């Protein structure tokens, strides 16, 4: 069983790396880019029987810092 966890900074939390990427894209001539947010993708390989609740707990306790980040779980 596999799961993919997406971790993104919450809206309103400054993402200077995303901002630097936006600047670079603008400088390259991609004028259509209005914003960039950068996050993480974490792939988990799980033993049979793992539940979405288990993964949620992993996210809340370690994979994301819920003070600044939100997460989404995708079962694949």
């Amino acid at each position, binding site marked *: 069983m596999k799961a993919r966890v997406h971790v993104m900074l919450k809206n309103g939390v400054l993402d200077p790396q995303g901002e630097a990427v936006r600047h670079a894209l603008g400088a390259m001539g991609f004028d259509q880019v209005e914003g960039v947010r950068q996050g993480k993708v974490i792939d988990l390989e799980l033993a049979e029987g793992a539940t979405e609740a288990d993964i949620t707990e992993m996210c809340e306790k370690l994979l994301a810092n819920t*003070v*600044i980040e939100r997460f989404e779980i995708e079962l694949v």
Partner: protein
Amino acid sequence: MRAAVIVFPGSNCDRDLAVAFEQAGFKVDMVWHKDASLPDGVDIVGVPGGFSYGDYLRCGAIAAQSPICKAVVDHADRGGYAVGICNGFQILTETGVLPGALLRNAGLKYICRTVGLKVESSDSAFTEGYNAGDVIGIPVAHHDGNYFADDNVLAALRDQDRIAFSYTENPNGSAGDIAGILSENRRVLGMMPHPERAADEGHGGTDGTALFRALSGVLAPA
């Protein structure tokens, strides 16, 4: 008076912190991250700077889940004293002992220089050797020192006089120019600047000495 300094893989300010404690009169135990308990009779725990676990995932995130950190959280929950400096501050926020989080510096650069710090509160065992309003010079050395907390937390920190130090010129984008904060019971301090690197004539500055001296004054057996 006994201090415990935690050593993680990647800590690099642990010995500097131990020397600063020793010069203030503490007996220091170095405690490995895999230990599950602190030595008996520890008066204060120091969580040092560095790059614990290579800063993987988030600065301090993996250290916060180490066996010794559970003991540090229990120590703080019992009303014990603790100080987290730089990566140690990041670790203490990741454990939830201190509120907020440390984000990437707003300018994206690693900053390594002496900065001006304003003492916001002298009402703690860490800061009573200073006067509120004093400006001291203490080095910073970090890439992720941009303090973030939601508006409610920031208001509580202000209302409860829990901002220990602020930057005179904000180097990293920190909310409210915050450089260091206190726990609700004022017994845990987290700060990004390094007072242990300004605690000896050879460092080029001794403005950090008063912090360790004040601690020894409060924690000395009566």
